[in-house]
């Protein structure tokens, strides 16, 4: 995994050729949704069940790999946002690399649903740095349901990343990865053991406090939650309070969901201290994302440099579990 380089032009060309032969960006979703609901399932390459670990490894070509995981909410309250994500995220790798924010970014994409009501509440791909990313995005099933109780299973996704992702960046260099959750609702009040068993396959017998999952996760990941406009709860203060309580300034509101790549790239550029906010905006305008850069500027305005300290090398690489059982 994780060999090769990504190139925006090649990505666009592949899309053009696929479109010419009638394969659209949402082909997998269309094919699955045509089947009866009880047959809906994640593509085997995206199914977290029984996965020991998704790996982000160094290679001869990419000696300084940095993991970036982007998991977006694919439920109905997100409106058309998941489709925008599926289309836009393919250019993220090129953007980060071209601007020199990271030498060897490796990306993993995934979809988040509702474990109480969805057939496919969690999908996670592999870390890639070439056009397999694009395939991964197209293979994410946009289920579109959700429960309507203003919460989705973000904590289930967080748990997977905390417990089932292994990165050389952390193991060899003590460097955190980047996790972006994109959604518009609250965490479930508890991470239910039965969901962990059913969806991921871990033999967990007690429910877990979601906040403690994020605490564990943050030891190895810079965790961000992005609330995009055009989703149901964009202006709901309860959502903002909930996520700020867990992630502080890493809760980001994005008024143009089409600017998601630019937001993620700029956030990483800032975090890596490669650029300041002004320079990030200039960079984005330069790559033709002038309109997007405005949205990004607004989203990042509250992020101060004080929060951007890099983690020191960890005392014990894989550390003890520190989740709080309920």
């Amino acid at each position: 995994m994780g060999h090769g380089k990504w190139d925006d032009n090649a990505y666009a060309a592949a899309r053009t050729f696929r479109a010419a032969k009638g394969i659209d960006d949402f082909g997998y979703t269309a094919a699955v949704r045509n089947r009866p609901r009880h047959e809906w399932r994640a593509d085997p390459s995206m199914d977290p069940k029984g996965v020991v670990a998704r790996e982000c490894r160094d290679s001869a070509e990419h000696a300084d790999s940095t993991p970036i995981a982007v998991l977006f909410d694919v439920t109905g309250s997100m409106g058309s946002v998941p489709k925008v994500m599926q289309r836009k995220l393919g250019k993220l790798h090129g953007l980060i690399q071209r601007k020199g924010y990271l030498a060897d970014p490796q990306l993993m994409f995934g979809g988040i649903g509702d474990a109480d009501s969805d057939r496919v509440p969690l999908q996670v791909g592999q870390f890639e740095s070439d056009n397999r990313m694009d395939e991964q995005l197209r293979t994410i099933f946009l289920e579109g349901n959700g429960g309507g109780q203003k919460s989705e299973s973000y904590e289930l996704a967080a748990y997977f990343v905390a417990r089932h992702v292994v990165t050389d960046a952390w193991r060899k260099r003590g460097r955190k990865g980047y996790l972006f959750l994109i959604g518009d609702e609250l965490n479930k009040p508890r991470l239910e053991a039965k969901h962990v068993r059913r969806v991921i396959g871990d033999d967990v017998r007690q429910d877990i406090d979601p906040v403690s999952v994020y605490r564990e996760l943050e030891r190895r990941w810079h965790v961000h939650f992005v609330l995009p406009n055009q989703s149901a709860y964009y202006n709901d203060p309860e959502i903002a309070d909930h996520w700020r309580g867990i992630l502080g300034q890493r809760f980001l509101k994005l008024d143009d969901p089409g600017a998601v790549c630019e937001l993620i790239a700029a956030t990483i550029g800032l975090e890596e201290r490669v650029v300041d906010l002004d320079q990030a905006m200039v960079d984005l305008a330069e790559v033709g994302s002038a309109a997007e850069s405005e949205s990004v500027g607004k989203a990042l305005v509250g992020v101060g440099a004080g929060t951007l300290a890099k983690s020191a090398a960890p005392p014990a690489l894989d550390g003890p579990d520190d989740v709080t059982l309920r």
Partner: protein
Amino acid sequence: MNGHVIVVGLGFGDEGKGSVVDALCHDGPPVASVVRFNGGAQAAHNVVAGGRHHTFSQFGSGTLAGVPTHLSRHVLVEPIALAAESRELAALGVRDPLGLLSVDAGALLTTPLHVRANRAREDARGDARHGSCGKGIGETVWYSLLAGARPGDVVEHQEVVGTPGAAPRVGDCADPAALRRKLDALARFYEPLIGAGTSVAELVSLYRDFADAVRITRGDEVGRLAGRGRLVFEGAQGVWLDQHHGFHPHTTWSTTTPANARELLRGRPATVLGVTRTYQTRHGAGPLPTEDPAVAARFPERHNATGRYQGAWRAGHLDAVLLERAVALCGGVDGLAVTHLDATGLKVVTSRGAPPEDMPDPLDWFARRHPVLVTGYGPDRADHAVLATGHGPDRAVRTCATIGA
């Protein structure tokens, strides 16, 4: 003008071949296909039709008139740029542009590796640039000539740095294993020059999508197309950039004379139409004997800017010596297409070193030398006329009614 037509530029490119091909496709008898017989993604043929403008690069200039394009085996095909061009055409309202395309399996493939190598070399030349477009054309041809060469050999004045493999061709795109082998060899070969470039795995997958999206032909496709109706052979660049006849090193690695088209036609008769402006132009470095900055200043170019790799836009008086020699290099022409006839106050240089003379009636000047079969007075399709009979020195035969209009 009957039968097939070979359109060839009599200058240094930018003569107006695109608008002439468009006019032939729009105004003449039905055209079965435009056939490209040289060059590659570096071609830039401007067509303006009723408010729509497109700079054709790999698609034939008959596309806005709805005519399919065939890229013959003499063309260098660059799929990534081709996809971008198809998106531009779709944005102009052309339905399914890739569906209008067929490509000969034997055509050489220009890859991002060739493009990077081309730019690396041209950058290294500094002030001694050749005026390359930076699109990997020369590199694609050069690599295809290396069969059997060893590191240290000199092929076409360039040292061979590694061990070359067979050149990737369009037909390989449908065979991932073969393509991978060729691209691996190509990537290894160019690594000393450009480092680790685009990943081979990515290219294999991309080219497979390309092979699925366009029709790849084998055998005598031109013969099959000729059976369906008129073919218009669209030349790229001009005779004075020809690899054998141009002023080295400011040439393109391409046969710009009608030779390739004639070979594809296998003896079928065709009208050779030489395209010329009413004045001389050139992009980038190289000789332009009648150059006069005042001419460039008088006729600003809407669609020709200075290219980073190609260099500045230049212009001069019509060069009668070069024009007649270009006609001779084509083995004669059956007629001329004269563009930019709306330009006024023109001069012509009739012998080397002579001062420019006034040319009060350009159409008359050209028609005294060769029959004028197409006239172009402006940038738009509406300003071009395909003449039923040639316009000779006798004004009586000026029949401007367009065929089929």
